[in-house]
């Protein structure tokens, strides 16, 4: 399972990548695989203040809908509007063009507290 080394993770299968002052959030390759064909993504409003662990987006496949939790607290500064037309990008490129939203974090230490790639790989092993 593809788990890039350049970012952090949550055990609910979101990834978070800090670039400058902004954290980009998406779902992992494992998560997109488990969900199957993504048919719709409900994204938060830009400007919304979110808490770490708060459900802020929903990724839907034909038969399931999964809440996506904010990995860090802060303000939503951008969402991936291209997913409205092309939700399949979440399946095709979960770590790139399939990103969901960006947060400007309130507290940088929260990012550091997320799982590193090795820890996330252990989570995946446990889920079997």
């Amino acid at each position, binding site marked *: 399972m593809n788990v890039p080394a350049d970012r952090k993770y949550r055990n609910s299968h979101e990834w978070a990548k800090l670039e400058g002052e902004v954290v980009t959030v998406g779902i992992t390759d494992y998560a997109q695989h488990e969900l199957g064909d993504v048919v719709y993504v409900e994204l938060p409003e830009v400007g919304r203040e979110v808490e770490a662990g708060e459900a802020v987006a929903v990724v839907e496949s034909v*038969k399931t809908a999964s809440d996506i939790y904010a990995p860090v607290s802060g303000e939503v500064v951008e969402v991936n509007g291209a997913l409205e037309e092309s*939700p399949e990008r979440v399946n095709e490129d979960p770590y790139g063009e399939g990103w969901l939203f960006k947060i400007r974090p309130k507290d940088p230490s929260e990012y550091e507290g997320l799982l590193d790639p090795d820890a996330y790989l252990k989570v995946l092993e446990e889920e079997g």
Partner: protein
Amino acid sequence: MDRREDRAFPLIFERSQKGRRGVRPPSVGDVDPEALFGRENVRESPPRLPEVDELSVVRHYTLLSRRQIGVDTSFYPLGSCTMKYNPRVLEAAAARFTALHPYQDPETAQGALELMYELAEYLKAITGMDEMTLQPAAGAHGELTGILVIRAYHEDRGEGDRRRVVLVPDSAHGSNPATASMAGFEVREVPSGPDGEVDTEALKRELGPHVAAIMLTNPNTLGLFEKRILELTEAAHQAGVQLYYDGANLNAIMGWVRPGDMGFDVVHLNLHKTFATPHGGGGPGSGPVGVKAHLAPYLPVPLVRKRGSAYVLDEDLPKSIGRVRSFYGNFGVLVRAYAYIRLLGLFGLKRAAALSVLNARYLKALLKAKGFRVPYDGPTMHEFVAQPPEGLRALDLAKALLDAGFHPPTIYFPLIVKEAMMIEPTETEAKETLERFAEALGEAARKGLANPGWLEGTPYTTPVRRLDEVRANRRPVLRWTPEAE
């Protein structure tokens, strides 16, 4: 039908010819809409409805019906849905009441009101409850009504602000948590124990002054009767928590035991499941709600009451939650259920329940012999949840059953069983049908293990084969438009 015709099976709109007429309504001659309504109120262009002759309408919907299976055409063991035979005398009974208007003087609707009153009495007796409303239009609507009644009760006792949580087992129907949310409650799931019944200890830990109600189905969605039900309801009542009974599975036990005696405070019924009224392709149904006396003041208005020899619609319930539907509910469905109860009587209802359990147990034994697994294999009642032999998917077997002429069971529910196949044969199926079904399912599994490609390709004989649901959800087309063609 040949394949080409299948491919082109038209929409009614595609049979339209400009200027063609079908059935003509009674007419008073030419009426000028602008003179009658004023020009500014008249629609600019007529709705684009099909223009079709009567025979074409008949052919269209007759041929369409042949692209549909129902209990009348096929064994339909859809778990939790109780797809029993719908006796046609029920339809004949309902036809006797179609010309009544809901606002006619109740003096001239005494037969309808008497029927409703009597039906409520029967349902109270069958469930062991003290009062009953017939107003809710479906099971989920009954759930909402019942939970709102519980909410009103807590509010009336000054505990409304405190009791904000509804407990729901993880095996519950999705409508339970959805209902609790709609009624303004927070939902908490309670895990099932290793035997498939509610984990009583886990549930007791959740009880407290913050809990308004517990919603349970008994037998539960695994088909198991919650044997510790008395202990459970007593513990809940001690904590001031109200017990809600989801009646989806009442068919298993009607006449044998009663939710009221188990300690439930509220019960909803699905007349379109247990009492043999037809599902109609998804409705209409009816979801009467029964309550114990302490909750009766909160029921929706109006209630049918008997005053002397007259039946009246009583609107005078000051603590009522209000109305949940216009008029008095799905009256035509009530007539059917009344007729069903009169046909069967207590003896017939008990026998129907027992035979539904017998059929389900027998079918379970047949399928186990074919290599199907039953993860919570207790003394299941009217339904059971099986898993396909290792390596097979429930979805594929469901599709293979369509080729064998059967409607598949409910699949992927309850959520606590992987690859779940929830099977409810009902009492109206013959022994040989169960045997043929088990053979067909066993054969599909055998062939599927030997040739996965074949199984994944099923169904081969239906009007359409597996449809592209991803496309339908990514780019839904929800209406016909002339331009699109």
